[in-house]
């Protein structure tokens, strides 16, 4: 899938093409694996919060307030891979 393909999908309001691309990206070309990877990341995001430990909300809110949407979106992709790596189940062949 090319960038233009994704831009056209975004312009046409075709979320299925966009999320399919994300799944393929996270699943190294395997859409079903990508779907599981997304679930895995959310599970890993939930676990550390179950005991309600103190978190640095000032950092979070300051980051969201001061950074541009593209940087935050990029951070979101980084956090996905950080969380799946933290899970200990690494499906990817290579290194981050």
């Amino acid at each position, binding site marked *: 899938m*090319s*960038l233009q393909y994704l831009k056209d999908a975004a312009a046409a309001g075709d979320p299925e093409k966009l999320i399919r691309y994300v799944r393929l990206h996270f699943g190294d070309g395997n859409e079903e694996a990508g779907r599981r990877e997304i679930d895995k990341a959310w599970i890993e995001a939930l676990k550390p919060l179950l005991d309600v430990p103190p978190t640095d909300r000032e950092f979070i809110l300051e980051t969201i307030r001061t950074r541009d949407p593209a940087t935050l979106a990029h951070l979101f992709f980084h956090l996905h891979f950080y969380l799946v790596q933290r899970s200990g189940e690494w499906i990817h062949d290579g*290194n981050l």
Partner: protein
Amino acid sequence: MTETSDGGGGPPRVAQLRPGLWDTVNERYPGSMIDKADFVPLAPLRKPLSECRLVFISTSGVQPKGSMPFDTVHPVGDYSFRRVPSASRPDELEIHQLKYPTASANRDLNVIFPLDRLRELADEGVIGGLAENFYTFIGYNMDPERLERTLAEDIAAAVSEEGADIALAAPA
């Protein structure tokens, strides 16, 4: 690529060996929309191989330790390249690349980035020597136009400045 003649007495044209290649890519990867009718003909060798300085260009994601890691998480890819000194030792380099198995390369970098083998070819006089730097990037780039317009052009310009005579380009 093969050489063909247009029958007009001019220099032979170089034809693509697999003219249907992009059709195949587009069929297997719907939406990739690669459309490339033109191609760059192979440049003829201007001096003996044993006198040529070689530059190695690789999509392996190999880079000097401490340099900014290739962006392996960006959904559209990373269009930057790294210079890797050809005098580097393997333990001075690391791999940032998600899309191919790196286990063997982490044991012996030469399987993907043949530093030692190329130095041996230079020492044996098979090639004239190595360019000061090799060039690497990652192959996960979803915008072919940007890839050609920026990354390929940037590397070509850098390689030209190196004074390399020949380039060995290897996908990972």
